[in-house]
């Protein structure tokens, strides 16, 4: 069973995504920590798509800003996908953030991809037919999920 949602690549859509995931979580009886991870990763990915996915400024033709999200339970995991028509961007090649040593030097941003890596079991990317496709796998667990902190 695959549940899908199509939104616009806009920050204002994040609430709708959060609520949709919340409802799905109840429907699928997803553990709270797993739901948290799903909502976190959705927010991080969608924020990046909304802020950077269409910022190349070179395309004067109206772009398709639809973003398609899917959620599918598979055994003891939840598999989610995020597809968008934005500029090609592979989050897997982004460098891990440098752990700050002083509050004065801490950048305000740049943590979203790292959070996605740490809160998923697996994170996969592909570019096909002009679309970015991110596939996220979450383990259904009551504990705060993801991999060990780097």
């Amino acid at each position: 069973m695959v549940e899908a949602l199509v939104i616009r690549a806009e920050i204002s859509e994040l609430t709708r995504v959060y609520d949709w995931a919340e409802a799905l979580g109840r429907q699928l009886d997803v553990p709270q920590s797993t739901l948290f991870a799903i909502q976190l990763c959705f927010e991080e990915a969608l924020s990046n798509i909304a802020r950077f996915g269409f910022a190349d400024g070179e395309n004067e033709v109206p772009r398709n800003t639809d973003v398609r999200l899917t959620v599918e339970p598979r055994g003891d995991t939840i598999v989610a996908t995020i597809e968008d028509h934005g500029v090609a961007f592979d989050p897997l090649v982004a460098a891990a953030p440098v752990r700050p040593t002083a509050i004065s030097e801490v950048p305000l941003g740049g943590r979203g991809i790292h959070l996605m890596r740490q809160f998923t079991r697996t994170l996969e990317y592909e570019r096909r037919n002009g679309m970015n496709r991110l596939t996220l796998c979450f383990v259904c667990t009551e504990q705060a999920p993801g991999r060990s902190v780097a």
Partner: protein
Amino acid sequence: MSQHLVAILVAVVHSQADWPPAQFRRTGRNRDRKRAAPGGSQRKVIVDLEQVSFLASMGIRTIIMGAKAINLKGGRMVLLRPTPDVEKVLTTTGIDTLISIVHDLDAAIGVVSN
């Protein structure tokens, strides 16, 4: 539209005898992205995260902005009682190495008072 309230209780601690403080301000952040950085003009700030059920990088940005402002004044900020999931976000991003996280109010007062 359902609102996901992220309630941040910001307590300005002047002394241990001040708790609960006579003066504190409550900032709320909902999905409309209202944002208020804690701290203002104060130097000792406890940010109570007990009622914060969700925190992503946007929320971390707000916390960092407050911490930077407080740091410039030579003050301290401490994060109090985050939930396990919220705390994992903070530790994953290394924020816990810069801003103390405690789960006890007395400990929080002790941190900002030192």
